[in-house]
């Protein structure tokens, strides 16, 4: 065994020497490769982390949200529904929610306005999310003006700003007392946006949803598990789409690698001929080519993953911010809790290292089977 090990190390020595001799080209290859791994790994890390974050953060979300649809669009829910739902077995509480969107043309931001049940929030005051405060450039005690449905301005004193730790769920929130919410949007008093239902035993949720849907055909109950599944689906589905796009990049890269390995220069061909003439065997040359490939792909894989880790978890994925933000101006500042597991790593390995190795396999073999006497006959 030590013989095999020493042979591998000696051949590795030579593999590195031959990589170093073509510094420029191999550095370019390594750079592109690392970049591909970096982008793929960033994407995978980011989507997995957001998925898990969503699961953790939304663990205490309502067990069931009951909406009403009118001609296929979401509509206000009559408060009478709440009373009926409250009477169902297993329901612990039913809390109507009043919330909506408010577009502020001056700042170009889309805020989420929600009525707060907090008694400590007197009429004429508001509590706002950290991102909203940033956009509006206000601090505690300042005044903000919202334009009501009746075109009258609604003046609110900022009574508090939500902590920056909560930005992932509350960055764009404007929390208003219920009266102000109703004034702002002119909501009928006996209706709410939707109902948040909590149950003691989550096992009972599907049964409850079925009962509600049966009683109110226009109701749309959304289960807690469906909310969580939405985030899985979002980041798997379109994450997969991006990976499909990325795979084209990987493919291009593999073709590049193939070309690079197949288009051996006369110089390299001569070198392999020399090696074979001085006593290297086909499998030695194959090993040489394999080690050359591994040296590049392992370096690229490891550094790409580590860089992606830094990008996503230390710097909150600034490269994706543009894509996630869209044309909105509000973007939460958050730090994701690192998630790296075997699934992601074996996925990245399969996506990054395997195609490259595959692409260089046959050219490597072709190079390795140069006739040993070719060097003599040249």
């Amino acid at each position: 065994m030590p013989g095999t090990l020493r042979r591998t190390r000696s051949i590795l020595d030579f593999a590195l020497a031959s990589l170093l001799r073509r510094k420029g080209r191999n550095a370019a290859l390594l750079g592109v490769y690392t970049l591909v791994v970096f982008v793929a790994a960033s994407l995978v890390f980011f989507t997995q982390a957001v998925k898990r974050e969503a699961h953790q953060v939304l663990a205490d979300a309502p067990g069931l949200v009951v909406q009403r649809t009118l001609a296929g669009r979401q509509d206000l829910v009559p408060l009478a529904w709440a009373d009926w739902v409250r009477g169902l077995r297993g329901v612990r509480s039913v809390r109507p929610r009043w919330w909506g969107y408010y577009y502020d043309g001056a700042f170009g931001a889309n805020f989420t306005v929600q009525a707060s049940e907090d008694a400590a929030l007197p009429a004429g005051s508001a509590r706002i999310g950290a991102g909203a405060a940033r956009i509006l450039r206000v601090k505690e005690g300042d005044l903000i003006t919202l334009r009501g449905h009746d075109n009258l301005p609604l003046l609110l004193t900022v009574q508090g700003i939500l902590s920056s730790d909560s930005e992932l769920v509350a960055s764009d929130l404007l929390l208003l007392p219920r009266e102000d919410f109703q004034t702002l949007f002119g909501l009928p008093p006996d209706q709410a946006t939707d109902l948040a239902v909590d149950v003691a035993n989550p096992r009972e949720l599907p049964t409850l949803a079925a009962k509600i849907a049966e009683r109110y055909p226009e109701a749309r109950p959304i289960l807690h598990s469906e909310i969580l599944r939405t985030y899985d689906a979002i980041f798997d589905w379109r994450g997969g789409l991006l990976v499909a796009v990325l795979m084209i990049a990987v493919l291009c890269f593999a073709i590049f690698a193939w070309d690079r390995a197949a288009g051996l220069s006369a110089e390299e061909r001569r070198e392999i001929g020399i090696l074979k003439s001085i006593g290297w065997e086909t499998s030695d040359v194959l090993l040489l080519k394999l080690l050359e490939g591994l040296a590049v792909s392992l370096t690229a894989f490891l550094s790409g993953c580590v860089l992606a880790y830094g990008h996503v978890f230390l710097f909150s994925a600034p490269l994706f911010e543009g894509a996630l933000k869209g044309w909105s101006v509000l973007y939460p500042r958050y730090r994701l809790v690192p998630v790296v597991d075997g699934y992601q790593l074996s996925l990245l390995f399969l996506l990054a290292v395997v195609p490259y190795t595959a692409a260089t396999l046959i050219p490597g073999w072709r190079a390795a089977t140069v006739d040993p006497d070719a060097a003599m006959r040249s």
Partner: protein
Amino acid sequence: MIEVANVTKTYHAGRPNAYTAVDGVSLAIERGRLTVLKGPSGSGKTTLLSLVGCMARPSSGRIHLRGVKAAGLPAAGGALEITSLPERFLTEIRRATFGFIFQHFNLIKGVSTLENVMLPAYPLGGDPAALRRRAGELLERFGLSRHAREPIDRLSGGELQRVAIARALVNDPAVLIADEPTAHLDSHLSEAFMALMGTFKEGGRTLLIASHDPLVYDSPLVDATHELRDGRLCGKASA
């Protein structure tokens, strides 16, 4: 040591560009002697060297090696028949038995002198420190120590050949094969080369040189000469 019986080598057999480089050659090379293959270029000398040196397999005929140690191979009456062995085994025999000095030196550019000398031993998996020492000693013996760390590109023709010789010796082969060794040397260096061959012969190595340089085949060190023309032996072997 080496017996070549009725060996033919045809390249591209069955195709329009088929070409028989060696045609029915039989000869014997004896241990500890200096044998020269002479003939004009294109006469099949190089091909015959590559057949004898286990680099290629003949299209027909037999080559037997005597006194070669090879694990896992059958040796009938001490002679090893190498004509139909897989490349893997041919390589194993080759690197244990033969050292090659090529016409164009065949050194690898961009790699240091020392490493060039060590290269043939890499696949053997021997102790790297011992190998380095051995290569260093060889370089010292040929007066190349000060170039050990330099890339090969900066060396002169004579130095290059001495590096090539050092490389041929690094696995301590029983047979040295040289193909047109003096083609790129001036007379002075060619004589020095032959003197060196003389010391190897005294050291007990078998030498096989292909050349059309009179300085080589007329040298008093030569024990036997075989003349090749158009792939066939012509005339009697002179001993």
